[in-house]
């Protein structure tokens, strides 16, 4: 009895390996092509560097983020390499601590956006007719609001909660992602293998997620990089406006706000977060761009015959 189970299990494992191996290969095709481009390497380098900085930062920081190490707006010195902020805390330490929130919140918001956007895109693209029309018009309304205004609107009603910021940034992304996935779905849904599944009587939900979704992974990859870039900017922006982490927490967006009055005396506490947010978005954008180019390349290669 146990033997039989063992055999079946190993078969299942074997199956999944083949499966996973191949699916990874699909994925790797785009990634490898992208990796061949200088822009992607630079992007990955930048992104990796900043993520590493945010992750290990707290351990290598010379002080505690709330510790007063000198006078407010003190210039760089031996004790505080980049000087101090508006109440005398070490800028290097605050910068090292402040990247985590931006990166994690941006990632979370992007994932929410993808989840909602992909589902809506698949449904509208496959259902067409009135479902498509109705959902897309609703999405158009959401699309009409600038993303930051949409987020501000809800944050000002409910209050500056981190989960709300993540949710609103994610929902702001959803219609944009849905449009891209809908376009991909419309194309895939026309192919005969979808007709074949319909003729067998496979359920609509299964067709959407098992037949169509796997064919949209490549544009999905590109969207992920692109929306992550926007998320970083939006989250940092909301934080700057005072809707993110609250003082005395260390956060790049917040730092810019707190220290902007002293920018002429001591530019470092403003400059450092600005530069880091800037190059972080450049990094993610380069990755997305590389993926996008790789995707077009791959489609050109296999699209023929």
């Amino acid at each position, binding site marked *: 009895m146990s033997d039989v189970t063992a055999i079946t299990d190993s078969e299942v494992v074997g*199956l999944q390996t*083949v499966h996973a191996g191949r699916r990874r290969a699909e994925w790797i095709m785009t990634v490898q092509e992208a990796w061949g481009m200088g822009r992607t390497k630079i992007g990955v380098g930048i992104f990796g560097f900043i993520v590493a900085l945010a992750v290990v930062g707290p351990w290598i920081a010379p002080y505690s983020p709330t510790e007063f190490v000198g006078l407010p707006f003190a210039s760089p010195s031996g004790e505080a390499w980049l000087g101090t902020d508006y109440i005398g805390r070490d800028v290097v330490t605050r910068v090292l601590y402040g990247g985590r929130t931006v990166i994690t919140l941006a990632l979370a918001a992007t994932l929410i956006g993808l989840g909602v956007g992909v589902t809506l895109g698949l449904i509208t693209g496959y259902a067409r007719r009135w479902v498509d029309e109705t959902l897309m018009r609703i999405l158009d309304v959401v699309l009409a609001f600038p993303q930051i205004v949409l987020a501000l609107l809800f944050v000002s009603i409910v209050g500056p909660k981190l989960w709300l910021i993540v949710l609103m940034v994610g929902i702001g992304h959803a219609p944009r992602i849905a449009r891209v996935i809908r376009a991909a779905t419309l194309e895939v849904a026309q*192919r005969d*293998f979808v007709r074949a599944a319909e*003729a*067998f009587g*496979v359920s609509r939900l299964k067709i959407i997620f098992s037949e169509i979704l796997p*064919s949209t992974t490549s544009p999905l990859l590109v969207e992920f990089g692109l929306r992550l870039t926007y998320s970083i900017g939006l989250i940092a922006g909301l934080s700057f406006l005072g809707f993110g982490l609250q003082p005395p927490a260390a956060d790049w967006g917040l730092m810019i706000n707190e220290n902007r009055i002293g920018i002429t005396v001591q530019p470092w506490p403003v400059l450092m977060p600005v530069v880091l947010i800037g190059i972080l978005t450049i990094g993610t954008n380069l990755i997305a761009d590389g993926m996008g180019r790789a995707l077009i390349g791959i489609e050109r290669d296999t699209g023929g*015959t």
Partner: protein
Amino acid sequence: MATAMTTDPTTGSEREVVLTVEGLTIVLDPSGRNIDDEVSLWIREGEVLGLVGESASGKTTAATSLLAHQRRGAKIAGGEITIDGKDVLALGDADLRTIRGGLISYVPQDSSASLNPALRIGTQLMEILDAHDFGGSGAEREARLAEMMAEVLLPSDHDFLRRYPHQLSGGQQQRVAIAMAFANRPRVIVLDEPTTALDVTTQAHVLDTIRDLTRQYGVAALYVTHDLAVVANLADRIAVMYAGRIVEIGTKEELFESGQHPYTRKLLSSIPDITGERALKGIPGWAPRPGQRPPGCAFTPRCDWAIEKCSEEFPPVDGPTAEHRVRCWRWQEVGAQAAETDVVLRDRSLDACETVEKTVISVRDLIAFYQRKETLHDIDVTLCERRCLSLVGESGSGKTTLARCIAGLHQHKIVGDIEFMGKPLARDARDRPRATRQAIQYIFQSPYSSLNPRKTIRQILAAPLKVFFDLSRDEMEARMEKALEQVALDATLLNRYPDQLSGGERQRVAIARGLAAEPTVLVCDEVTSWLDVSVQAAIIELLANLQREMGLSMLFVTHNLALVRSISQEVAVMNEGRIVEHGGVDAVLEDPQADYTKKLLSDTPTI
């Protein structure tokens, strides 16, 4: 080796040789893989040379290189092309521009894609005359334009010339492309499957025009095609290409009556025979792509005559005469065997009707719409048990729509009755009971589109099994293996993905998926139109056998009237959404009643 092929090619004919190609080799640029290898041929004035080959044989690449053009990623690595003694490959860009469209011109496969949609056809036609400064004056060119249009049997009035390409039919567009090619009275013209996208009737007219113009103006024409039947009606001489090499070249009669290369012989017996005397025989396997070609003679793995030497060395140019050239180690033995021995007569006993006929599917007064437009009118047709009914028609005749209505895939309005075993069928497959969905299986036209590229063959075959049966894992596995066996595929394919299979194998998988559902009715929608002739023949053989052995009722949709006798017992001919003729295959093909059937029969090219 290559030089031997062109040794004094003028012997045996007083006509002047216009084009000579010698030892042409084309490689893929970074990898250096050969697309074309030692291609040598020659064409005299007023002569049509048919260059025949299956997909990926390198025929189009070879043909376009005559204009010193190389598609992206391809590079001419060696050889010589001369037109009237002029070395084409030695010419600079400026000189090439002068000869292209002047000395040598090109007719593309799909003229609807190669005509500029934003320019009126008159403008486009005048452009080519202007570019080569034809006749030296505007008046001269105006006159030539009118003459050109007359040559290709198109009106040359102002209104017609002011039309845009989309306002012309497919046949008219191709005529415009031909007019352009003949505009500057070229010496050589390269025609790259110019009739593939056209219906047989239009094709017949276009071929006539090409033949007349080549003769009339003494042009040397290279006609590239995969269709031997077309070449049989058009060409004076034929070159058969396989895996980038010309394996046999000779006059049409020499090749058709005493082909010396095994591939030529096999190719001929895989061409559907409209008379139905001959059984269709496929060639096992498929033509290899560049980079996957075996060493030695590339046909070795598919060849009955292969000996050890074949896989070691590519045979030199040899052959019975200076004009009839073969590249095969055993050509003398192959040639000694009379061509008739290749012919296997069709087993006609199978055509005999069973007296008791049970109707499986009956369609009555069916009207189908595409959006608001009525595309099928008053269709009445019945499919009997264990019989195969062919549904023949040109594109737009509604044959696929009818097939899709039966399969429950037509997404627009239909009126009328479709009955299966006496019970009415719902329009949408989803609304039909499970047993009905299982009983009627549909095989799609393109195996490139009907198999999900992201799924393994196992997952693809599992779909119908999961929906229709409640099976254990082992039972499923056994059923899948059985289904693959039925279509002569190996069970090791289960872990592969569709893009790792050839077109023929993919279509077999699609058929296996249909069979896995254990249907009683199989609806095959142009299932061979995407395949090479040699593979098409094998698929037809397979379907015919399955239908008999499993007692299936089959609806076989096709545009190719020549295929009908090889597979079906009954035929229904469709035109413009109506069935114009319906009956037993012999009756309809031998004594057609409807004018449309007669026309279709006379226009279908045969060998």
